[in-house]
């Protein structure tokens, strides 16, 4: 009885084992072994910042020579160098970009016109009369971006503004999509000149809404290289084609600090944050 059972089970097992072994030989697909190695060297965050559907896809393309290792913005230069060395290719030029918030109006400087009660997301608050903040363009501070960030690069300050950790930020674009006020943009890290305001109201009247808003006084446009900064739209706008001509002197006469010369941290010129954030 027992012997019979062993024979039947063992026999079927043997038949299937032979079938699987044959199938493995017959249907084998050769895969470049380097893909696994490169894949292991990647951060495995599957963030999509490179534009591909994951780290594995990136590794395949990198081994195939279709993409340069530096296109992975999440990894650090050392790792990128290792991958390039392993594959024997040029690492490529990596331009480190980070998400930057075009608003400095925390609860300490921006006026809150109405109290908002309801769902605690920026998206929902925006749908109710813009969220109750005096400035219709400003950050609402319900942290949709913090929740959207896969890398923990965004944290909210006590004043209700998100702060981007430039070390952790991979420029994956998630916060840009998450912000209903469209305040985030991906900026080249080395570009020091930045306007942290989107309020389109002309003149000093804007100071009633927020004391760090752009008043379109035009001093920055006068002090900068011609054509670099324009205030015609209602807020200072930087022409990034001419960014090479930017100098710190353009920001020095700004009465509110809406335009700033970045030094390490984004909110370096907001007084309440200067102690902890300034480089």
């Amino acid at each position, binding site marked *: 009885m027992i012997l019979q059972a062993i024979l039947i089970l063992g026999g079927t097992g043997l038949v299937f084992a032979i079938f699987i072994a044959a199938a493995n030989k017959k249907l084998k697909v050769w895969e470049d072994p380097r893909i696994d190695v490169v894949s292991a060297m990647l951060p495995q965050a599957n963030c999509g910042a490179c534009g591909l559907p994951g780290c594995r896809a990136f590794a395949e393309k990198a081994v195939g020579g279709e993409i340069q290792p530096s296109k992975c913005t999440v990894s650090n230069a050392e790792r990128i160098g290792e991958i390039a060395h392993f594959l024997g290719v040029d690492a490529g030029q990596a331009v480190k970009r980070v998400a930057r918030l075009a608003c400095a109006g925390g609860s300490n400087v921006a006026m809150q016109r109405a109290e908002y009660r309801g*769902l605690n997301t920026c998206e*929902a608050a925006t*749908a*109710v*009369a813009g969220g109750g903040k005096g400035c*219709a363009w400003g950050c609402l501070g319900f942290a949709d971006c913090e929740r959207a960030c896969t890398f923990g690069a965004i944290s909210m300050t006590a004043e209700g503004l998100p702060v981007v950790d430039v070390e952790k930020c991979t420029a994956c674009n998630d916060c840009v*999509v998450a912000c209903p006020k469209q305040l985030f943009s991906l900026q080249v890290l080395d570009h020091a000149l930045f306007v942290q305001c989107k309020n389109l*109201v*002309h003149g000093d009247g804007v100071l009633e809404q927020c004391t760090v808003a752009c008043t379109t006084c035009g001093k920055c446009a006068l002090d900068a290289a011609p054509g670099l900064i324009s205030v015609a739209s209602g807020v200072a706008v930087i022409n990034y084609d001419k960014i090479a001509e930017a100098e710190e002197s353009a920001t020095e006469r700004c009465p509110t600090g809406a335009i700033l010369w970045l030094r390490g941290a984004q909110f370096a010129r907001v007084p309440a944050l200067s102690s902890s954030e300034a480089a």
Partner: protein
Amino acid sequence: MAFFGFAHGVHPPEEKGLTSGLPIRRMPYPDELILPLRQHAGKPAKLCVKVGDYVERGDPVGQADGYMSVPIHASAAGTVSAIDLWPHPDGSYVQSVHIKVDTYALQAARPRLVPQWEGLTVEQVIKAVQEAGVVGLGGAAFPTHVKLAPPKDYAVHTLIINGAECEPYLTSDHRTMVEFPERVHFGCRVMMHTLGVTKAVIGVEKNKPDAIEALERTKPKDLDITILPLTVKYPQGAEKMLIHAVTGVEVPSGKLPVTVGVVVQNVGSLAAIAEVFDTGLPLIERIVTVTGHGLKRPANLIVPVGTKLKDLLAYCDGVTPNAREVINGGPMMGMSVSNLEAPVLKGTTGIVVLTDEEVRADTVYPCIHCGRCLEACPVFLNPSWLGDLARVKRYQDMADEHLADCMLCGSCSYVCPSNIPLSQLFQASKVALRRIQTAGAA
């Protein structure tokens, strides 16, 4: 008595008693008027004045920009004092014309030539309605002349006139029907002539017997107008619900009412059309119900378009100390206002001031799947499921579940025992979906 209504819906407290018996009064001109160039659905008007210009009452300050647009007219004589970005009731900032009202002006209306509508062709009537800046006064502010020229592939057989006014608190349409029934009938006559229909139905909820009586009394003998008392239920005044109540036909999802051969107009819009062909006055003032338990003196007022909300509330003796929230529109579909500098628009049906006790700030509990929202939803969606999808941001799946059919009537939020703000979730989702779709198209 036959049942003229629709399935589902809710019965919120009406609260119309505050103003339903108050005659319409005219509000004096404020010192300054704010005329945003975007007051209607469609393209904003094109600016046609400059700072320092003197405008008469009824002069255009913005021209229609294309077919899906209407002009904006000055609602009082005065000087254009500024043109800048100004708070809009929806919370954004919109380019607006400021008019410093001339205290000693006659305030005689322009144009002073009244178009003789019987002598005009259909196209000329439509043009005259567009030039008068008439939009749907029920809240959505859809340009009326577009509705007067339905696509030729559909035969329109009935004009339905929306006098349901199912939204709690609001009585502006009610008072219009009671006090100006002839205007409603005259506007109806012009519309029927233009659309080439012989049949019109005025749907009025049964809780307004005086309006039904007034409309019956003044009904013209030569026209086939039926005044239909409707069941009292929210949202009876929603376009598709009204069509279902009157004709028994359901408008297909995503389609316009014209596909079932009807055109719906609000009674206020008809009165505005009557005004155009009666006195030549463009749409520069409208009847606004200013009400709520947070207001000292509720009233039905003829308000010049562009009056700041703070001036309007001040004219009603201001708000009580326990006033908490100001709503533009009714409490079900209206939107909280965050800035009282914002003006009254053509689409402002009412301003409701709620007190501290009325403003719900209850804890939100998890969904218990009781299904009350399903029973309330007038367009037969599943708000509970949509709410779950909204919370995890699956917007595309929501679109597949017919989010577009949701008209944000708020019935689901109203009945939810867990206080889940479903309607707000859907509104935010609609905005997010539009953003994703435009980003995808770009």
